[in-house]
């Protein structure tokens, strides 16, 4: 428990630093929220003055940050300058799409990457291994947005199996709509997992306990899952967790290509519009996601690998 408490304290500190940095960097970057609030048409001197007063744009930076922080700790993240809607509902509108996409992609990534990497390692040097390694290399080399366009042309336009854009309304629609984006996102990531898995499992085949397990006549499922997978799980868990965190915050190119209004797309447009309340909330959310995922990975280490557990207790 002390371990978890320590991690949470560190996380809070991290989020604090993150919010100061984002606030300062965005304020220092060129452009002014005034432009977003007044729109692209000519503005009058009166409305410019009114906007600056209403949004405290002329207050010194630390004062503005303190005001934001005061509201934020009370759970009030303000309203978007662009849509005038509360930041929480802006994000709540988009999170389900991104979370669905991220979850779907990570399932595909692991479903393909783990077995392929494991098999490649166990059959090291065989044509199968070479085939898998080469495919992974190719998959890694295709940028997700190029993959998106390829999939769109192939499966959505030519074959008409999948919709071209949007996220759908019902659960079934959501699954159809997110399939191509999830594949586009998972392609490169599966390749990373394949390589990671292969590296982690390379010397597995030669291990005495694997040979012994097989000699004992251990069942196939137990051999692969209980012995092979479990012994190589740690590095793969780490990579998988990081990929999930990345998908939750930065699937921008794929989101754009498939016309999905997700969190990645929101972040980029909010930065462009200097929509500070939205950017701040998103950065904090991203930070919290990374911290949470890392914490979960560490906890998973304890569950998966008894050696870590004993080490932790001893320490």
């Amino acid at each position, binding site marked *: 428990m002390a371990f978890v408490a320590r991690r949470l304290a560190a996380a809070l500190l991290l989020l604090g630093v993150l919010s100061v940095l984002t606030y300062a960097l965005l304020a220092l970057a060129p452009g002014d929220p005034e*432009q977003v*609030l007044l729109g692209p*048409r000519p503005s009058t001197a009166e409305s410019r003055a009114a906007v600056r007063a209403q949004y405290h744009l002329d207050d010194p930076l630390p004062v503005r940050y303190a005001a934001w922080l005061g509201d934020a700790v009370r759970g009030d993240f303000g309203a978007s300058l*662009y849509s005038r809607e509360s930041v929480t509902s802006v994000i709540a509108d988009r999170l389900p799409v991104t979370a669905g996409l991220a979850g779907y992609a990570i399932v595909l990534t692991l*479903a393909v990457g783990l*077995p392929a990497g494991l098999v490649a390692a166990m059959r090291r040097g065989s044509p199968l291994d070479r085939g898998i390694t080469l495919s992974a290399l190719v998959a890694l080399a295709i940028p997700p947005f190029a993959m998106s366009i390829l999939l769109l042309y192939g499966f959505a336009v030519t074959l008409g199996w999948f919709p071209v854009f949007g996220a759908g309304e019902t659960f079934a629609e959501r699954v*159809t709509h997110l399939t191509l984006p999830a594949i586009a996102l998972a392609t490169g990531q599966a390749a990373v997992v394949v390589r990671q898995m292969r590296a982690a499992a390379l010397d597995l085949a030669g291990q005495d306990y694997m040979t012994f397990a097989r000699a004992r006549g251990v069942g196939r499922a137990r051999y*692969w899952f209980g012995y092979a997978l479990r012994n190589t799980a740690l590095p793969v868990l780490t990579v998988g967790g990081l990929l999930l965190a990345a998908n939750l915050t930065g699937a921008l190119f794929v989101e754009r290509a498939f016309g999905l209004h997700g969190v990645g*797309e929101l972040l980029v447009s909010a930065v462009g519009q200097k929509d500070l309340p939205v950017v701040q909330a998103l950065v904090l959310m991203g930070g919290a996601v990374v911290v949470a995922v890392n914490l979960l990975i560490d906890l998973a280490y304890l569950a998966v690998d008894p050696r870590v557990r004993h080490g932790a207790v001893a320490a």
Partner: protein
Amino acid sequence: MTSSTALARLATGVLLVLAAGCAGAPGSGAAPDTLRWALGNAPNSLDIAHGFNDASTTVQFAVLDTMVAIGPDGQVVPRIAASWTHPDPHTYVFTLREGPRFSDGAPVTAEDAAYSLTRHLDPAVTSQAASYVTQVKKVEVTGPRTVKVTLRKPSPTFLATAALAWQIVPKKLAAAHPKDLGSPEVGTLGSGPFKVTKFSLASGVTLERNELYWGPKPALRRIEVKAISDPETLRLAVSSGEVDGTNDIQVSETRKWSALRGVTTVFYPANHIAYLSLGVREGPTKDVHVRRAIAHALNRGALATLMIGGHGGIADLMLPKPQVAALYGDKPPKLPAYPYDVNAAKAELAKSAYPRGFTLAAPYDSGGDDVKALQAIVADLAVIGVKLDLQPLPTEQYRQRMFSHQDTPLQLVDLVYGTPDPGEVLPDLVSRASAGPQGFNFSGYGSPETDARLDDLGKHEGADRAAAVTEVLAEIADQVPYVPLYSREAAVALRDRYTGRFGTWTADIFSGIRPAAGA
């Protein structure tokens, strides 16, 4: 072999996922009176005070009535106002139509109409349309159905801008939400042909026919508006039939759109002008001979072909072509022009203080395709010894530089306007008031005499007004603070299940769309 079985299972798994996907794939079985429309951006507000941009106004004009409207030839026509009088140059008295009701059933009152205009002047609203109504001094309800507007000084532009900015909303709702009327949380309420049933920045806008609408009943029952920000995806969505049309077509992409099967792309003149702004306050471009030399050196025909293909043409006057047509009909004035002539350009340059040429900084927005035009301009100007130093800047940084009016001796400006009245354009271009930061007088040109001429624009109506506009245009043509380059067309793509009529002044595009016969 263990491995091959594992692979086979894996392959089956992937196929199953794919098959699950196919099962729910979309058909194009939507009812023909439901239109699925795509925009490049999501509307951010259903109130022009906070969403004065193409995506937002496209939806606003389908939902909200305006006091008056712009007719097909650019003339101002009645809308919520059945008629109006103009007893003296400072005064307009509008008489409201009998019968319009908001989509919740409440009648549209003179109070609502008056408040809908004055709210743009309220600093608490910080309206994006405020600059369009600065000439308004007072708005009074003078009777149960009459509203009197008093202007600070005479302005024929007022009626045209009223067709744009004077959207009628219920006073009660607007007064309760000065800052967030039209947001997804507050929404809006109008008396127009459609009403909003859903509005989200992420999943789009749904409109349904307003059964209480006082005007002709629109043919469409339901409209689903979606935002697709990637232009390629947008085109694929229309091509595959997942959306029925869009009015968000880049001019550089028109060939691709015209080639789509089952889709008709309609072009019409946009209220647009692209021009070169030359800073007159300092540096070589302070010299009028330099500015004339630059104007002569530009091959505008080639530039127009490069940038807009056949969809538009060279701009001769410093006004969008539809405004020229609305004011002068088909007889625009003949003013000094600077045809493409390298020798004339060199001769002008020889008369300047820089006969051998010079180098000029040209900052530009690296986010758009301005660079394409600028590279052609660089080549043209190099011939007479004027070297441009292109400075790419990120969009935000460029906008900041542009509106600071600092270090911008030469820049490409590309603007779309909202009304048929030159009064929307000329004061912005050459008045001293808009030469400061945030103003649209990018060249910094201006003098007390010019300001007097601009003032004159407001005093005249009819043929005299055309003469007054010509005077300002002649001054611009003579002094060349700006070089007009080209005016482009706008386009609407519509799948063949639908037909529609669109023009430069069509504010509400949805009311003009109907299912095609036999669809």
